[in-house]
């Protein structure tokens, strides 16, 4: 019994220790005004949480991230099924996809800002660009990984191509898509923040930029803490959703040690 409490005690100790170090460093003025104390940051954070502008920025960030994620998922799965089903399409897109895959959306941020301006559409476009390719690639892998015996069985039962796609190929690609979505969800949040921070799009990124430009360091730290919590929530929520949706799949049926 005692042993099971110990990890939590150490965790609490670690968090408390970090806060104390922060407070001591800040009150010792090691970095002047640029490092506000923990107490200042948390009182500022409490004030920020009471303002309407904060909540509308938070809403914009979450809204853009989720909408873009949904669009990317829809387009990504459709494209992935298309590319995975036809060999010629797969070969035609291979080189382009392989080139674009390691290119992060921040690279085309200047172009997006130039054409679309510092708007929600710009942020949306960047997030979709960033999340689309991994989802497409994973869906293609999933389609390729479909058990050929299951496919043949479905065909011998007289299923049409469309029915096979919906009942055999798509379900067997689901775990791949699930993995892609689990990785894409936090990325969507990150890109939304980047679009606000560097491109002036609406949301918390823009709020952070304003705090930094105005030298309002307490707000800056407070907002970054908010983003950390938000990032954790996104990760937790997607993991939960993945397990919910894929509870039938064998890799989720039992806990793998």
């Amino acid at each position, binding site marked *: 019994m005692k042993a099971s409490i*110990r*990890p*939590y*005690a*150490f*965790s609490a*100790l*670690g*968090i408390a*220790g*970090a806060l104390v170090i922060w407070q001591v460093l800040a009150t010792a003025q090691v*970095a002047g005004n*640029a*490092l506000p104390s923990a107490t200042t940051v948390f009182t500022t954070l409490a004030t920020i949480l009471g303002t309407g502008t904060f909540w509308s920025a938070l809403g914009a960030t979450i809204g853009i991230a989720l909408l873009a994620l949904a669009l990317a998922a829809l387009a990504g799965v459709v494209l992935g099924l298309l590319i995975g089903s036809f*060999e*010629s399409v797969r*070969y*035609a*897109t*291979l*080189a*382009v996809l392989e*080139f674009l*895959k*390691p*290119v*992060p959306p*921040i*690279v*085309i*941020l*200047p*172009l997006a*800002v*130039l*054409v679309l301006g510092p708007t929600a559409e710009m942020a949306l476009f960047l997030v979709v660009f960033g999340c689309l390719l991994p989802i497409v690639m994973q869906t293609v892998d999933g389609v390729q990984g479909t058990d050929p015996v299951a496919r043949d069985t479905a065909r011998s039962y007289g299923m049409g191509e469309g029915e096979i796609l919906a009942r055999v190929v798509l379900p067997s690609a689901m775990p791949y898509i699930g993995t892609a979505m689990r990785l894409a969800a*936090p990325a969507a*949040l*990150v890109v939304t*923040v*980047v679009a606000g*921070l*560097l491109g002036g799009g609406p949301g918390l990124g823009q709020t*952070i*930029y304003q*705090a*930094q430009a105005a*030298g309002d*360091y307490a707000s*800056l*730290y407070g*907002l*970054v803490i908010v*983003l*950390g*919590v*938000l*990032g*954790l929530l996104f*990760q937790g929520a997607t993991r939960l959703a993945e397990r919910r949706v894929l509870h039938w799949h064998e890799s989720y049926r039992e806990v793998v040690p």
Partner: protein
Amino acid sequence: MRNVAIRNWVIGTGTPVLLLAAWWFLSANSTDPFFPPLETILIRFQELWLFDHFQSDVLLSLGNLFLGFAIAAVVGVAVGFATALVPPVRWMIDPLIHFLRGIPPVALVPIFISLIGFGTQMRVTSIALAALFPTMIATVDGIRSVSNDLMDVARVYRLSRKERVFNVLLPAAMPQIFSGLQVSLQVAFIVMIASEMLGSSQGIGAMTLLAQQSFMTADMWAGILLLGVIGFLVNILFSLLKRKVLSWYIGSRRMARAA
């Protein structure tokens, strides 16, 4: 069968060529300020990067990228080992790591700007810190997933602690560590660009954003092209390194699958 292979090869190499040709001809007489002719972009590309700003900006950016990534790799693996092997340390810093990992890496850049200023130091620190977490977490996962049998055998052979760490644990965790390093490299690349875009005047990212803000569209396109090529090449180089270092692992996997 052979015809199909040839057809696929033709489609595979033909499509990118076709797309580039389409870009070249469709944009040839373009007067759209956003989409200048590809020819103009390539001329600006050559004028800017080969080799006028090569040393002052391209090498600077790449130097920051590799220095930051190298620091992140070494510290990430070391801290990962410490956390995985000493449970109290793991319990203590686990929640902190998870919280820090939740923060978008780019959001840390403004904090480093306020603490250190706009210089090279800030950029390397931002890159190193942001790239630290994927490697560290992958290292911890890699060590935890080393099979108990392997450790028992090491103990039966009375290997010392040092031998167990360097000759058993490190190689066994290597595949996962390398996956983590690859993610770290991508994060490092993103933060490299972000740290330059936020208020500095040097580096490829800064030049690209500056070109956009001053409506020098061809310069902006040249910057985007260069960044895209760098992102692609860095990833390819790392994959080659990974294949070389992990050749024993890839070989053993292939044999296991064939068996």
